[in-house]
């Protein structure tokens, strides 16, 4: 009892300070709340949108929802390390290497190509394509709209005659750019054999 009376002022002061700061923090939390995009949208924006389903979800958005609910971030095969890093950045999680269970990130981007002479017009690939990038109708020859194809591979398996190939996207004059130099210690440039000496 004596202890309490002796220290009453200190106790009161501490309580008052605690309450004051508590109120301040509470106020700040309400007043300065950050209005952000819903997290699913932000995650979805980082995913490559190939809709390939290699993560085990039928599309990128479902996976984004899965991540938002705590699923691992290392299941996106086409996105590879870059995507995992971006996700880790966004969510404040640790970087984890790609889960090999789901496949390996291909070196180059691919695009589907239908060998049109062999197509029987079964429409199975049309149904499989997650972005409606295949054009065709029953008993009509199908073709892939190259610009819309995400290279997800989902049309290859359903094809009964195996007439769909995944081909690497070719580099064009428009997409070409310089590679970075080889780095410290090496001479820039390379010797290339001269061609067509007239």
């Amino acid at each position, binding site marked *: 009892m004596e202890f309490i009376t002796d220290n009453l002022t200190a106790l009161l002061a501490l309580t008052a300070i605690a309450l004051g700061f508590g109120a301040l923090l509470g106020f700040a939390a309400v007043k300065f709340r950050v209005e952000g995009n819903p997290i699913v949208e932000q995650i979805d924006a980082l995913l490559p949108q190939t809709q390939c389903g290699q993560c085990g979800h039928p599309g990128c958005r479902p996976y984004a929802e899965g991540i938002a609910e705590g699923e691992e971030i290392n299941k996106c095969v086409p996105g590879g390390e870059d995507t995992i890093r971006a996700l880790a950045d966004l969510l404040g999680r640790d970087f984890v290497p790609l889960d090999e269970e789901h496949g390996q990130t291909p070196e180059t981007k691919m695009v589907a190509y239908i060998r049109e002479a062999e197509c029987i017009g079964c429409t199975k690939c049309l149904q499989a394509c997650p972005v409606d990038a295949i054009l065709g109708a029953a008993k009509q020859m199908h073709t892939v709209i190259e610009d819309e194809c995400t290279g997800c591979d989902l049309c290859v398996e359903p094809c009964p005659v195996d007439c769909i190939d995944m081909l690497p996207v070719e580099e064009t004059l428009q997409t070409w750019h310089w590679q970075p130099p080889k780095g410290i210690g090496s001479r820039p*440039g390379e010797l290339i054999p*001269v061609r067509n000496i007239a």
Partner: protein
Amino acid sequence: MALLTVTSPHIHQPGNTGGFMRQVIYATLPGLFMLTFFFGYGTLINLLLAIPVALGAEALMLKLRHKPVSFYLNDYSAVVTAVLLALAIPPTAPWWLTSLGTGFAVIVAKHLYGGLGMNPFNPAMVGYVLLLVSFPKEMTTWLPAAGLDNSTSIPDLTTSLRLTFTGAEADALSGATPLDTFKTYAGQPEALDASAILHGTFAGYGWEWVNIGFLLGGLYLLWRRIITWHIPAGMLLALFLLAGYFNTAVDADTYPGVMHHLLSGGTMLGAFFIATDPVSAATSNRGKIIFGFLIGVLTYVIRTWGGYPDAVAFSVLLMNLAAPTLDYYTQPRTYGHRKPNKGLAKPD
């Protein structure tokens, strides 16, 4: 037959990092000459000791880090570190002091931070400060400048060698520096008047010429465009303003004059050779001016109110810490933009 394919530009100004660094070494010659003239062969011996140690440490670290040794040794950066440190430590320093400082500078301050270009602190000054805080006695023992009192002459080569290698005590020969002297007698006009060392041609005897030597070297670097004017100007301006204000407006007996500050201790060596170390300094022009100015301010503050007589090393290291922040907030305005960037905005 093959043709070389390389990105433009296809021509290059002559010179490389090694050449850059060699110019810095040449530029220290006037200052080195003055040091030798007034204090004897000690500094030369330091130099001859520090350079092999630095090169050895550099080679060792490169080997351990699996880097091409000769390629990196050719950039002379280790030699510059050794030279600057050797010029900064007293001529009476024993061999182990020089070696320890140089080794620490190269191994810890440079290579453990990632090697050339990656070190946040000036290696030479890290080595210097390590020695200063660990061995204050050895590091503050200076000789009296030759010609002072008409009696003092420089120690001969054997004395210098003995001081460096046999551990002979330098106490008998030692004398205070002008900065020391003023600090001791600050506020006592009679004592100040009586100290001959404070009354050279422009400032402290002997030291004024050492500083002028480094100033000449600095001007050479400016002329060769190895450094820009921003950092030295900022630093000297700050010293000038502060010293001028306190000396004329506050109290001339407690606060020494402008010349005393500009031409004593490590001022010129610091302004032109140490603060301008590109790796650890600020890089934007405005940033450099602020960087230099704050070094000047810190130097004045520590010299005047701090516990150490000189403060260039501390000031430079402290400002090295601030350099990234300065760069961050002093980006130039890019052509075609209304305002300069401030910091790093979040990419959105």
